[in-house]
């Protein structure tokens, strides 16, 4: 995102609209700090500028690696790898059809930068490497996974490490028996981050209605929030989980 200094009238209305505070006033006109800008286009779409001084570069015209900022931060931009808009992943929204998270398995998603802080990909790499060390199965249909050069080490492409996005989701899973150790490792690695992360666990509900992760969280002293995201099983055709149990 850029501001056309010839058009800007210095009204400052666009300044609070930026989710990461990347719009600043300089010499009485607004200016975008391009290093901090995540290319989310929230300012542009807000239509806050009365003189059309905000200049958006469409994602298709952005050079690599800057384009990953838009892929991860602009909800309207579809990931070219997964064809999913948002941050490029369906995760368990379609689990009854895709069978991504089955019995005996728990999904772990670490969304770096959320809520509202943003993240450099160098911080994302700290988490991908820690999870790889624990034997994570990375979700293939996720843009961050596509940028991992070696799934055994979790190393990301070098050319993206300084890129910044509003958030990026490291999406992986573990057999239930390894889940506790993975969460403990995550607790350690987040101490090295220069940002925040929102952490998610995902499991298929057991036949008796329980969640396989409940006893693990009790042991770890973690209380999940009372509001969860619940796939209500309306998708078709249903994945035949019994066949893999």
């Amino acid at each position: 995102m850029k501001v056309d200094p010839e058009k800007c009238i210095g009204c400052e209305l666009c300044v609070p609209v930026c989710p990461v505070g990347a719009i600043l006033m300089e010499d009485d006109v607004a200016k975008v700090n391009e290093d901090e800008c995540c290319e989310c286009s929230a300012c542009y779409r807000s239509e806050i500028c009365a003189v059309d001084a905000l200049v958006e570069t469409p994602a298709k015209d952005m050079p690599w690696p800057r384009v990953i900022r838009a892929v991860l931060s602009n909800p309207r931009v579809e990931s070219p790898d997964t064809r999913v808009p948002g941050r490029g992943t369906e995760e368990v929204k379609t689990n009854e059809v895709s069978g991504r998270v089955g019995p005996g398995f728990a999904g772990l998603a670490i969304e770096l930068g959320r809520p509202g802080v943003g993240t450099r990909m160098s911080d994302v790499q700290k988490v991908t490497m820690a999870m790889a060390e624990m034997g994570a199965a990375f979700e293939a249909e996720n843009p961050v996974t596509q940028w991992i050069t070696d799934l055994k080490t979790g190393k990301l492409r070098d050319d993206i490490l300084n890129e910044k996005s509003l958030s990026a989701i490291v999406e992986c899973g573990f057999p239930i028996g390894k889940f506790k150790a993975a969460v403990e490792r995550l607790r350690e690695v987040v101490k090295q981050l220069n940002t925040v992360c929102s952490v998610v666990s995902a499991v298929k509900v057991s036949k008796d209605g329980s969640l396989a992760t409940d006893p693990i969280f009790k042991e770890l002293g973690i209380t999940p929030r009372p509001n969860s995201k619940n796939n209500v099983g309306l998708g078709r055709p249903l994945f035949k989980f019994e066949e893999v149990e």
Partner: protein
Amino acid sequence: MTHTLHRQGTPESLSRDYPLVAVMAHGFNDKGGGPKLGRFLEICWKHGPVNLGDMKQGSVFTYDAADIYNNVSDTTIVECCFDDLNKVEAVLRDLKEEDLGVPVVVSGLIDKVGECCKKVGLEIHTVAQSLGVWGKTELLPSKEVLEITTMCGHAMVASHLVEKMIEDIKKGKTTAEKAAKKLAKPCECGIFNTTRATELLDKAAGK
């Protein structure tokens, strides 16, 4: 895992907050899914949500609802948000009856959503739980602001804008209701709950 999950607030406040999300499964049932997703939105709209949108088109705070649900593509994600669990129950009943085959997620207090599903003969299949925010939490804005900004999971609702709205309400320059509508606009997906935002803005402004 993901944009409707990490909403913060008290259970009392969250009891009026139920975002619904629908997406086809890529490589499984996505071909020709656009009209089914559109029908999902049409059913939701019939039952009076506080917000509705399509990630690729925008929300009802920018576009007409019928224009949105008549132009849904196969590979998008569609959403709406309700402030009343009885309405969610009515939507689920219709969806079960029509059997669109569209994967649907209902976010909200798990006990309430579970009861609602049971009433219409559905069972929760898979659960994603928020384990909270970890890391450098000193970078976060205040709890009052987060309760509002986290209603847009893509972080399109800027904390500085919320703070400005609270100040404007305190000074009498705007009302909480108008501010909530203004804040809903950047949330492209249509999951920002304006009813809850109005309550939270009034509270934050000491009204």
